[in-house]
């Protein structure tokens, strides 16, 4: 039994381990090639901003990354710079490059991520299913101001969440933050009303339908473009709301799914305020 070891020895040992970790990290870091010699140009990823992977791959060999003597990209490859609001029919029309990677280039990865979140939410609901917890009664009931205020705030928060995931291809944000915002609005409803409970069956149906919509969009891509989760809609002009093809559709599905999932998790975790 190790419990007779003095507390101070354990803390010193922990500090020692943490120190070894940090020192080792920085030593490894200084052993790496110097900043100018690190060949980050071999990565295609930063060329996703060009919205054309084939062309970017051709431009790779002389591209530089923030060096003092920056060598421009290859000139012999024809490349038209992308102008906001003018360039159209690009490979991927999203103005937000991160979104275009998350949903378009690595859409299958995101499908797996949604699956992981679904499994985690199912696990929470499975573990906490049928809880009858004896909890002390709340010291203070939510006041009238709290009750009305959370309801008004919920409408605004809900609209803002929808705004965030509909504009996921134009502004920072997207389906996951939008869904989290909606779930936080529902958490506000829990705070404002005693005994509030969302419609659990409705949440489950909503979540299943939106998850199914994601897969159906992927299968439509498989049928139309011969690749799972391929963009089958016109990409339009960069910067427009109706651009970037299916990205907005998928982010609406993800936002609804994440919103209902996190609301269900909140509902499972919140302590029941039943009368005792």
């Amino acid at each position: 039994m190790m419990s007779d070891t003095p507390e101070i020895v354990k803390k010193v040992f922990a500090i020692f381990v943490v120190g070894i970790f940090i020192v080792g990290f920085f030593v490894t870091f200084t052993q790496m090639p110097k900043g100018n010699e690190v060949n980050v140009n071999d990565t295609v990823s930063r060329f996703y901003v060009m919205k054309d992977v084939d062309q970017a791959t051709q431009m790779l060999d002389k591209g530089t990354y923030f060096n003092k003597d920056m060598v421009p990209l290859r000139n012999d490859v024809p490349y038209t710079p992308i102008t906001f609001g003018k360039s159209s029919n690009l490979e991927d029309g999203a103005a937000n490059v991160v979104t275009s990677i998350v949903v378009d280039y690595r859409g299958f990865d995101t499908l797996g991520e949604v699956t992981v979140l679904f499994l985690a939410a199912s696990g929470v609901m499975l573990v906490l299913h049928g809880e009858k917890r004896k909890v002390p009664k709340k010291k203070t009931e939510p006041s009238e101001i709290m009750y009305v205020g959370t309801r008004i705030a919920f409408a605004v928060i809900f609209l803002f969440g929808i705004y965030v995931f509909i504009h996921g291809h134009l502004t920072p944000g997207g389906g996951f933050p939008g869904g989290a915002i909606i779930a936080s609005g529902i958490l506000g409803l829990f705070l404002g009303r005693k005994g509030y409970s969302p419609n659990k069956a409705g949440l489950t149906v909503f979540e299943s339908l939106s998850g199914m919509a994601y897969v159906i969009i992927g299968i439509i891509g498989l049928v139309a473009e011969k690749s799972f989760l391929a963009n089958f809609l016109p990409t339009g002009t960069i910067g427009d709301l109706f651009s970037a093809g299916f990205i907005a559709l998928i982010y609406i599905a993800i936002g609804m799914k994440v919103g209902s999932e996190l609301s269900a998790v909140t509902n499972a975790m919140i302590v029941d305020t039943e009368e005792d």
Partner: protein
Amino acid sequence: MVDFLQNWVYLTGSMALIGIGLYIVLTNTNIFRIIVGLNIIDSGTNLFIVTIAWHPKSVMPIYTATNNLVVNGHVIAADPLPQSLVLTAIVIGLGTTALALAIAVKIYQKYGTLDVRKIKEEDR
């Protein structure tokens, strides 16, 4: 190395977060505190991944009316791929934290404590 460490503030911050989280996980016996420590390690890792793809001169990888990502043939945007990976990691971290907390609730109901040592003694 100096060029690469221009973002040393964030690197040091991420390493400090990972170190703090590691210390919490090593020294605490309460399961809830261990989960909090793992969360801090998660944040530090995410900050580190974003930091190594960032540069003080870089701009955000979003096209707007005034934000051009390719200027005179130079790509001046931050690398968008690690940012998207971190977007994935944040969501998965949230899911695993929720599941861990739910299991912690069950452990508390069974043993009446969250201290791993007492749980071990009760199991004997």
